[in-house]
């Protein structure tokens, strides 16, 4: 009994790890293709049909390139930086519920690596660790521009983490739990949290953009001001790790947004499908639905990136501290007042 559980968990871990790597890999391709379509271009179309082998070609190029460690750089930390970035990006997906319980034979399987009762806090912890990768990388390069980029990343990450946390508090007041599995299950039917927390979702999404260092919040890699930002000195696959980590982060934060606010694996007509398709097939459809939501978010990330220009640094700080934090606090108060009134007079 114990060993079978272990094997199931192991399969799940490997599967999720592989899926997030593949999704990140093809996000790079999708990003280039989507950017091309937004800008009236064609995009990669040489490697394979429609260029779908482009990520493999890019990967091969990354591995073949010369690896440079600057002489004045701190050698150990220089290697630790990108490893930390990609590691923290990868472990974030451990608490996301990918689907409802699945029945294979007589066994009920949770489509989630682990359901810890502080799931959201775990994700926040992991996400805020991600900035260490950038910070260490920028520091170890011994390059002024890299250091500036790293410092920007750190200050941006800290500033937006606050409003992200505050926007989540309003959500937790409604859900009464920190477990992502619980939150996903509560949104069954049409009780998607975005309908109750539209402002909270907006704040959370803006912060997610900032946390993943995606445009318009990609100040750490501002090429016009900082050459390449924190990864100026990096080459070959170490640079690849940094870029890859960004895409994995994008995938994980899309998954988190879909789970917290957009109903996770829930979709309209779910009970009907579950009754007709059986307890083995129906959860798979749930997983597909969740992935559809995730891909929609990834597309939205790209859509924003190729539309909105980058913020100026003071504008970024202004938005974070003077707009989003007050808004998030107002959202908490509003949520408290409304839910109290509802419980007193209507429940």
């Amino acid at each position, binding site marked *: 009994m114990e060993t079978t559980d272990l094997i199931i968990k192991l399969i799940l871990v490997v599967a999720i790890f592989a899926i997030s790597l593949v999704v990140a890999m093809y996000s790079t391709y999708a990003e280039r293709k989507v950017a091309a379509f937004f800008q*009236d271009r064609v995009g990669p179309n040489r490697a394979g049909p429609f260029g779908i082998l482009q990520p493999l070609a890019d990967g091969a190029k990354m591995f073949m390139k010369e690896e440079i460690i600057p002489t004045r750089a701190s050698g150990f930390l220089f290697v630790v930086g990108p490893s930390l970035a990609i590691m923290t990006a990868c472990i974030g997906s451990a608490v996301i519920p990918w689907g409802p319980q699945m029945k294979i034979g007589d066994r009920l399987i949770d489509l989630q690596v682990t359901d810890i009762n502080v799931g959201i806090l775990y994700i926040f912890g992991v996400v805020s660790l991600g900035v260490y990768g950038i910070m260490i990388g920028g520091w170890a390069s011994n390059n002024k521009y890299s250091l500036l980029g790293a410092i920007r990343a750190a200050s941006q990450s800290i500033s937006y983490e606050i409003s992200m946390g505050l926007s989540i508090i309003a959500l937790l007041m409604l859900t009464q739990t920190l477990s992502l599995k619980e939150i996903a299950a509560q949104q069954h039917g049409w009780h998607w949290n975005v309908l109750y927390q539209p402002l909270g979702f907006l704040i959370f999404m803006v912060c997610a953009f900032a946390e993943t260092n995606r445009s318009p919040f990609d100040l750490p890699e501002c090429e016009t001001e900082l050459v390449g930002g924190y990864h100026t000195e990096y080459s070959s696959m170490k640079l690849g790790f940094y870029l890859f980590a960004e895409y994995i982060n994008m995938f994980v934060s899309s998954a988190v947004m879909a789970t917290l606010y957009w109903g996770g694996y829930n979709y309209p007509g779910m009970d009907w499908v579950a009754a007709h398709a059986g307890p083995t097939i129906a959860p798979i459809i749930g997983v597909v639905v969740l992935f559809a939501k995730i891909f929609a978010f990834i597309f939205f990330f790209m859509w*924003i990136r190729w539309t909105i220009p980058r913020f100026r640094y003071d504008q970024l700080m202004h938005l974070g501290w003077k707009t989003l934090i007050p808004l998030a606090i107002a959202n908490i108060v509003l949520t408290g007042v409304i839910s109290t009134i509802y419980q007193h007079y209507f429940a």
Partner: protein
Amino acid sequence: MEPLSKKRKLLEAKPLNFWEKAYLPAIAQGLSITMKHFVKNVFAGGDVTVRYPDEKREFSENYRGMHSLKRDENGKERCTACGLCALSCPAEAITMTASERQKGEEHLYREEKYAAVYEINMLRCIFCGLCEEACPKEAIYLDGDIVPTDFLRKDFIYGKDKLVEPPLNQ
């Protein structure tokens, strides 16, 4: 001052109202514009770029591309190495060495004098077309393609092997 046209529009810097300060309507507008392009490109096949190596844009009729030295209707080289093209060339890109036609070469060259060496330095050429205009024998035209790229400077000096039209019966 009297305005030149009636299109002048007076702009004044008003403070932003609430919605303008929130930026969200402007962002939504921007997103809709890019989305229009996306939809057009994905579903309506709105290719606006030329897929260059596969397909080439058609040049206009008076486009001046690479030079070619012409042959006449019998396949003989028209050029008589008179040097007018070199003289007219403002960039001094053309050099040539004249030679006398030997017995048995009548099928190769149209007149007694011909260019044994004819070189154009493509790095100097400005594609002005004055050589074309100066030529009394209608021997040189700039009717070719774009000059291809290369790695070494010496490879941009085009000799007769690259300039002369291929023989007729080939």
